[in-house]
């Protein structure tokens, strides 16, 4: 009779179903062919999987209809593919922003952000190419979107760090927003030719002060308690 050394339960399985600790019984030979499983190997048809496949296909069909219509109208009216790319790009963005999170399950949310921001970058690139504006795309749109992407990812990381105290997380978010505003101001200035940080400084100072206050409050328990006492409601 093999037992789990941690849980103390008897089990015929190779590892404990409760804690996954390997079950070792030197008197029993490990022979899979003779093992009797309480449940068969066959798995019932997984309807949700089928449903999801169907939903994905249906969504693609629904999206394909306007794509084909605008492509056809564009081709017939102008003889080339031009303005229809705006519509197609917008539909692809909508798909990646709203339908990908519904249809595809990732363990963590970072992948959704990556997909969403990438589609936005590509869409803006198409618009820039069509309007001979690769300059503003490379100098302005691309770096701003990249900064926003990194900021949102870092904010998500900070917010999900549950081992941090709430005020520490709030301080991290305030600091990240402040840094990203500086970066955006710098990118805008660099695009116009002269780097001179102005408006972002006004945002940076209160945000950093706020972050500092949050951290101070988290470390100074007495001060935190004093404020809590006075703000008691």
């Amino acid at each position, binding site marked *: 009779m093999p037992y789990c050394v941690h849980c*103390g339960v008897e089990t*015929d399985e190779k590892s404990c*179903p409760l804690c996954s600790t390997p079950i070792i019984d030197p008197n029993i030979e490990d022979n899979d062919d003779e093992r009797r499983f*309480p*449940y*068969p190997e066959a798995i*019932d048809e997984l*309807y949700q*999987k089928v*449903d999801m496949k169907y939903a994905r296909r249906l969504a693609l069909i629904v999206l394909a209809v306007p794509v084909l219509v605008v492509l056809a109208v564009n081709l017939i009216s102008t003889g080339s593919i031009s303005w229809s790319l705006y519509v197609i790009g917008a539909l692809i963005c909508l798909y990646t922003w709203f339908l990908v999170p519904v249809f595809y399950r990732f363990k963590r949310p970072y992948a959704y952000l990556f997909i969403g921001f990438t589609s936005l970058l590509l869409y803006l690139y198409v618009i820039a190419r069509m309007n001979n504006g690769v300059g503003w795309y490379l100098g302005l749109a691309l770096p701003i979107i990249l900064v926003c992407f990194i900021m949102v990812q870092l904010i998500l990381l900070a917010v999900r760090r549950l081992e941090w105290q709430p005020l520490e997380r709030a301080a991290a978010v305030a600091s990240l927003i402040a840094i990203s505003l500086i970066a955006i101001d710098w990118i805008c200035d660099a695009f116009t030719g002269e780097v001179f940080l102005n408006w972002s400084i006004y945002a940076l100072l209160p945000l950093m002060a706020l972050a500092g206050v949050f951290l101070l409050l988290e470390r100074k328990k007495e001060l935190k308690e004093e404020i809590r006492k006075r703000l008691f409601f």
Partner: protein
Amino acid sequence: MSKRSYPQWIALDNAAKIYPAARSSSWTAVFRLSVNLKEKIKPIILQVALDNTLERIPFFGYRIRRGLFWYYMDSQKRKPQVQEDVQNPCSRMLRRSEGHFLMRLRYYENRIALEVFHSLTDGMGALTFLMTLVAEYIRLTTGEHIESGGMVLDIDEEPQKEEWEDSFSVYAREGRRGRAEEKAYHPKGTPLFPGHLGLISGIVDSGSLKKLANSYGAGINIFLCAVLLDAIRSVQSKEKSKRRRKVPAKISIPQNLRRYYPSKSLRNFSSYFNVSLNSTYGEYSFDDIIKLVQHTAGIEGMEPIVNARMSTNVAAENNRFLRLVPLFIKTPVLKLMYLLHGERYFTTAISNLGAVNIPNELRAHIERMDLILGAPRSNTFSCGIISCNDLTVISFSRTVHECDVEKAFFRKLVKLGLHVKIESNRRE
């Protein structure tokens, strides 16, 4: 009563109405009762036994259909076919490929398993059907006649009108009881592959379990509920979020209303109450938890209170305005109501069918029985308990990979001196 006078269609009972509306691809509202015999199952004979049992309890072969205002159960000429068992039980019911039946019968080696959509019946109704079927199967395979009694119906008898009665409307009175409750703690976890159900069953000796429970001044049901509540509390205390640690852990305990009223109905006739353990009040010892469950069950088990809870639901169903609302409007509203009220107020459900009352001749052919509750909608696990032939099987079904509550539960039983044998449906 002749077969012709058996109703061609039956309105869904009060408890059954929510399930077809609220079910989804992930929440199947299916539970499963299985019996392990001492001999390997012969599928052809099992099919004959099923056909004969359906002659005795015909509404188990009905299908569910949409009316203008409510769903209803409709008779059909097709008969359900026995199927081989699978690794992931309690999967979605009412499939076109299965003839839209509200039940399915499965077999694997020496096991017969009945899976039931909750609109059809509750645990006791399903148990009666399964035991009657097993008695018929034994008669067909061995020639031995099993006397009817307890959970076994006389297969040669005509179906009785009381068996398909909606007992809720018969026994409901005027009293009403509010449903407002505090939101319960819900453990989180990594979801299993869609449609899959993780099962862990613990087999314990009923006599030892009873002795242990009695040493705490409790019965088996109260004792196991207390152990479960204690296990949930220990998992909750390890939560990183302070807010999640503060929410009360609550378990939902079904009540068989046939204990209170002389109903012979084989359809749904059960209610439930919730036991809440609020950790923000302080630390509870195991004895405290037993008292908490015992006293809550004592109060919630009083007939007037049981009736008021049941009558509140019946009154809602009988509301004239609600009755006149077309089904296509009712369905999303009922779905929303279930999302808002259904599993929000309890952490998990623990259903104990107790010791199965069957004739001794039938008992001699049975090894053990299992009760598995299907995947909950928003909660991550549920627990079904049944005792037969001095073996109590405690089965946890879950929709996530983590089994922390189960681990804490069985470790507690071992710590208290019980011998527990564990099985699961995973294949390493």
